[in-house]
């Protein structure tokens, strides 16, 4: 990323700053966020045109820095059961999770570049069969239709992708709280009581678990379930409230959506 910032303890590209913070080489405590933002704004002011990519990356990194800093400034808690940590997870934290994931893929991309580079040093033998050999192999065009030939031509000649106008902004692959509410209503009605751990035991992704948690809170708010936690970081006990009022219909738009 092109954007650079300057603070009393750091000067350079903003993503490097985040790496240094992550790697403990710079304490987030010592970074005045205001000066980071000021420096960035000053830089943006100098731009001839708006670079959306850089802007959004800056926002993401700034958000993560704020998050880290606010955590650091508050008195910490530790030795919790890993499962219970989820209880405090919120959307902001998902941002960091996603950033970490992106960092992993960026590292993988570097690895790919190195592999490409290395593999390119060796060239495969492709000379093929000496034409003296008598071949009565099955017809290689068996089953190939003229349409497939045309398709292959288009694939081969589609040199550059045609730019298209982006009409969608919301991904299809969302886990919605609404869906989770419906699912949990259905399951809890049959079970009567359960625990959060039990309800989410089959889930593998963090986001799915978080969405179930938000759905439970929603159900609690609506009086459909009662929640109880025996002790700090203990398993969350969930009880279905059988005589609760008839639920209002669950519709889209009432809940936040989370990208998986």
């Amino acid at each position, binding site marked *: 990323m092109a954007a650079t910032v300057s603070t009393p303890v750091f000067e350079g590209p903003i993503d490097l700053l985040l790496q240094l913070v*992550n*790697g*403990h080489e710079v304490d987030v405590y010592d970074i005045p966020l205001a000066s980071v933002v000021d420096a960035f704004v000053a830089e943006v002011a100098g731009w001839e045109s708006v670079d959306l990519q850089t802007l*959004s990356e800056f926002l*993401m990194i700034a958000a993560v820095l704020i*998050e*880290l800093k606010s*955590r650091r400034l*508050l008195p*910490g808690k*530790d030795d*919790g059961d890993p499962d*219970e*940590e989820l*209880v*405090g*997870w919120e959307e902001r*934290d998902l941002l*960091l999770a996603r950033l*970490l994931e*992106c*960092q*992993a*893929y*960026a*590292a*993988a*991309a*570097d*690895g*790919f*570049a190195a*592999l*490409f580079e*290395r*593999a*390119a040093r*060796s*060239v*495969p*033998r*492709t*000379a*093929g069969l*000496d034409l003296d*050999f008598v071949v009565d192999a099955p017809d290689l065009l068996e089953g190939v239709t003229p349409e497939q030939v045309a398709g292959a031509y288009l*694939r081969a000649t*589609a*040199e*550059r*992708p045609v*730019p298209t106008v*982006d009409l969608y902004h919301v*991904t*299809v*692959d969302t886990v919605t709280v609404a869906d989770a509410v419906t699912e949990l209503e259905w399951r809890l009605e049959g079970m009567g009581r359960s625990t959060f751990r039990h309800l989410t035991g089959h889930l593998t992704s963090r986001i799915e678990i978080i969405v179930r948690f938000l759905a439970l809170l929603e159900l609690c708010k609506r009086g459909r379930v009662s929640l109880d*936690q025996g002790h*700090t970081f203990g398993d969350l006990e969930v009880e279905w409230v059988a005589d609760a009022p008839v639920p209002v219909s669950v519709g889209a738009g009432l809940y936040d959506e989370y*990208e*998986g």
Partner: protein
Amino acid sequence: MALSPEARAIEAVLIVAVEPVTAGLLAELLEVPVEQVDPLCDELARSCRAEGRGFEVVRIAGGFRIQSHPDLAPYVERFANVGVSSRLSAAALETLAIVAYRQPVSRAQIAALRGVNVDGVVRLLEHRGYIATVGRAAGPGQASLYATTDAFLERLGLDRLDQLPPVEDLLPGPETLDDLEEQMRPVADG
């Protein structure tokens, strides 16, 4: 030490092959049990190393092939068309990494991760033959799902996908992660 007749035969077949040849096919051609193919190819590869040949026998994309020795890249470069023009951008490489690790994956899922529209990049990768659609997602819209191809493995010089480092290893160092986790632990009692 002279090559065994079977290793010679494998070498002859690989010399005329235009893409990696599977162990199963080699076994069929040589009329030997498939378990014997791996040791024979090992023998072949070892003998190439021992004699300091100008080529090597490698296992790639689920098969065996002969390729020039990497040491000799400067000499073979002009015969190969793998130069700068085909180098992928950072964006394309990252998208490729996402497909490799999350396959099968839809364009929307990639876009959600990368935070930008990836249509052009996905099409470029598809056009290069590194990724291909392998099906459609359930649910409305039935988005195309993408996976990496054998050509991807070949170009990366890999035999199987699981030779890629696990994604966990690519996350920032363990200390960093532990520490991040600590910083992010909920402060409230939940």
